[in-house]
């Protein structure tokens, strides 16, 4: 859709760009407060990939709250995802580190453009970004972190020894630590204290972890990170509001607007994974028309499964249903020849003539064999979610709660789903986390393959595409079959 022509996206201050290009180290620290926008040329392609990769991470962080992950689980999942999509190493060649940090920097700023446009998006973006920052801060080694902290003015006032001893009793009373009093006191005596306005550490105030005097919070060194995190959030909030105000200028660039629109949708359904139809079956075996019934029962997500069931019940499917389900099957690995067979058999109440005239062309068209000869991709969850209430969209969003529960039970009770599982799904749907609900159903119905709660399709990844769901399900099945086979043979 976008040509990869070189163009400036951000401000074109040539001189500054020159200077920054020549300075030896552009990103001295792994952590970044993102004070300066990227002042260099980027291609539209780079603009989009950097943002998408980062969005993947942020969307996963956001869904973690809905999936009730602990801080430790969240850290593991996020670090794993970062390794895959947005690595940010501590050690390595300077060239490598610079390129990783550049990507981190660029991706952050592109997403600012996408997420500054409404109060709700800003709030969610700040939350996800600051969580990512926290995870990285936690993972930084002490020395590296200290260097980063020294590089910024956090505006905290060191409390001198005289003041510390003046308020010794008060400070000690809020100083957490060992249950052993003398151990705690010893730690306290070597602790450094910093003063900041209390509004900068609301989390510490909330838990009464600081001493407050006339609006000043006395923060012990070990709680210093609270100041840093709060600063990060406040800083980002202000920056986003500024960006929002200057955005109309950017809106004139017609090539960027659709990308930004697409990105901000990513929070609703996770980042759409592109499941390009290679025409080859994912698991090596060719899929035949007569296999679809069986595959649907075992491996399809609710959206595709209900379309399949509708097709069987009505011997027909309306236009958008045909389109969505057809593309899904194509990407699943159904060849054009098999697709024609599948649809012909499914529409068994019409004549050959009618089928050839009205339907065959469209099937071939969707395989890129007619008309524009475009290679159409299957619809992602995001596209299904936003397609409006219908029988070809996302059932988690578009079905009534009652119908959804009935559908879940009738579809998946043979795969281990019970009515005891429904309240959790319903609650997640009510909170608007449709892809999380779908991911949970995947986990529940694949527990016999060893899939645990929170694992998703592996490493905690959520469902963002019907083909991702089906492919993973088929993969799990195949692994199990193979190992069963091995046991028989050996």
């Amino acid at each position: 859709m976008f040509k990869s022509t070189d163009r400036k996206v951000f401000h074109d201050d040539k001189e500054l760009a020159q200077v920054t290009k020549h300075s030896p180290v552009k990103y001295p620290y792994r952590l970044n407060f993102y004070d300066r926008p990227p002042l260099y040329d980027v291609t539209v392609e780079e603009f989009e990939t950097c943002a998408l990769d980062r969005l993947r991470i942020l969307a996963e962080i956001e869904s973690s709250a809905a999936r009730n992950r602990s801080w430790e689980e969240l850290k593991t999942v996020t670090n794993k995802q970062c390794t895959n999509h947005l690595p940010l190493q501590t050690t390595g060649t300077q060239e490598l580190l610079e390129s990783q940090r550049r990507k981190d920097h660029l991706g952050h700023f592109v997403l600012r453009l996408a997420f500054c446009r409404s109060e709700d998006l800003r709030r969610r973006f700040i939350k996800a970004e600051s969580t990512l920052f926290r995870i990285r801060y936690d993972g930084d080694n002490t020395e590296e972190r200290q260097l980063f902290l020294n590089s910024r003015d956090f505006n905290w006032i060191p409390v001198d020894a005289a003041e510390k001893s003046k308020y010794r009793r008060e400070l000690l009373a809020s100083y957490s630590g060992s249950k052993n009093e003398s151990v705690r006191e010893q730690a306290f005596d070597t602790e450094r204290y910093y003063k900041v306005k209390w509004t900068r550490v609301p989390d510490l105030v909330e838990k009464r972890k600081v001493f407050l005097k006339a609006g000043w919070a006395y923060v012990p060194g070990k709680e210093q990170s609270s100041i840093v995190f709060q600063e990060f959030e406040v800083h980002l909030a202000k920056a986003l509001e500024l960006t929002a105000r200057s955005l109309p200028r950017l809106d004139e660039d017609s090539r960027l607007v659709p990308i930004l629109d697409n990105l901000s949708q990513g929070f609703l359904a996770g980042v759409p994974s592109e499941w390009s139809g290679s025409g080859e079956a994912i698991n090596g075996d060719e899929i035949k028309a007569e296999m679809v019934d069986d595959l649907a029962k075992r491996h399809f997500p609710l959206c595709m499964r209900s379309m399949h069931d509708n097709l069987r019940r009505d011997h027909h499917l309306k236009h958008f249903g045909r389109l969505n389900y057809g593309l899904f099957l194509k990407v699943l690995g159904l060849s054009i020849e098999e697709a024609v067979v599948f649809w012909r058999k499914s529409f068994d109440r019409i004549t050959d003539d009618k089928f050839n005239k009205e339907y065959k062309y469209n099937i071939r068209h969707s395989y890129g064999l007619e008309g524009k000869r475009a290679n159409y991709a299957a619809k992602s969850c995001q596209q299904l979610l936003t397609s409006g209430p219908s029988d070809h969209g996302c059932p988690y969003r578009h079905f009534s709660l009652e119908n959804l529960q009935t559908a879940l039970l009738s579809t998946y009770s043979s795969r281990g789903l019970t009515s005891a599982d429904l309240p959790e799904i319903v609650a997640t749907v009510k909170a608007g986390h449709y892809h999380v609900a779908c991911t949970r159903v995947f986990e529940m119905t694949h527990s016999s393959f060893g899939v645990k709660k929170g694992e998703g399709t592996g490493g905690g990844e959520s469902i963002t595409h019907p083909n991702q769901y089906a492919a993973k399900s088929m993969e799990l099945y195949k692994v199990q079959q193979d190992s069963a086979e091995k046991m028989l043979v050996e």
Partner: protein
Amino acid sequence: MAVKEAVDTSPEVMLAFYRRLYPFKSLFNWLNHEHAPTRRFTHREFAFTLQGDVYLRYNSFNTAEELKKQVCQLNPTRFEIGPVYSARPKDKKTVRPGMFTPLQRELVFDIDMTDYDPVRTCCSGADICRRCWAFISAAVQVLHTSIREQFGYENLLWVYSGRRGIHLWISDKEAMELTDDQRKALVSWMTVIHGGQESSKKLNVRLNARSLPASLQTAVEHLATIFPEVVLSDQNLFASEDGYEALLEQIPDSQVVTSLRKTWSANPSRSSEDKWLDLKAQAKKFEKGSSQRTNLTAAMEDIILHYTYPRIDAEVSKHRNHLLKAPFCVHPKTGRVCVPVDPLHIDEFNPESVPTVGQLLKELDTAGRSEGEVGEHHSDWEKTSLKPYVDILDKHALRLMEQVRLEKREQDVSW
């Protein structure tokens, strides 16, 4: 309990009150901090409750006169004050949704007698007497000191809610600008007894070792001085079996509990004061510095906090866009005016001596007859017993206006 007089808050009475007595100018000065209208007034939400419980939100006005005109036209049973928005609330429908957000708002607190029902024996529900008012009075003293000393805010206005509670409005610039998250943190800092908590549940206020946080240490030292009179003598809370069982549940030492229960069930006539002394005596049996004694002393401090520490309605304080009844409104059930109260003399305040709207109008008639004048009334409250209360608000508003003036002068000089 006093015999209830017939309370007249009919529409005619209310209209006369708004036209002749309500101090709109004082209210304007207090909300606006300056003589000329600023956004603090013009972008402020007012909400009206009309006869028959019709509720009108998102009203806003350019001047005190405009507000008065509208109030007299609608003749509400009461009206509430909300935040200062980024646009005029009356234009809400025409501005872009993202452009209508609350920016500033006084930090407010609401303390209501109903939250004290588990710890008062004199009245219940909507009723209130001087004896249980002592709880409110203790809460005011603790909050007033804590807010000033810990958070450094200085501009506190306390307002009697007209029936059984009290409101606090904090107008310092920094307090006005607090975000919802910061308000939530502050409320949590201040909260010890959570709403809906069972009366017997142990407090969870000690961070690590056995010491109280400094802020609560100061509070408990003050509350310990009023505890004997309010809880032991006036309310006699531990006299009944239910009462002393609730007390025993808060004592961590099971041997002490068993021994006290034995004594108390054998002597039903022992007063609350006797029982508190019994508990003290038990603690003293242990050596100074021993863990049993420290634990019991800590439990006694927690008990004092439990029965007398301010019970705050957290929801009111947490959100900038929460509406709160304006000072000088009339409580429809009691007819009493919601008057400002001097926190330094809060223990002398008697809710039953607060003027009712009927009484004030009578005073006005008497004054009018003796002076023989008729006509437009602007500050007729001067002739009534409402005057000292309006004076409190005026003095408070004047201080706010003075602060803004000094601040502005400083900015002028610092160019």
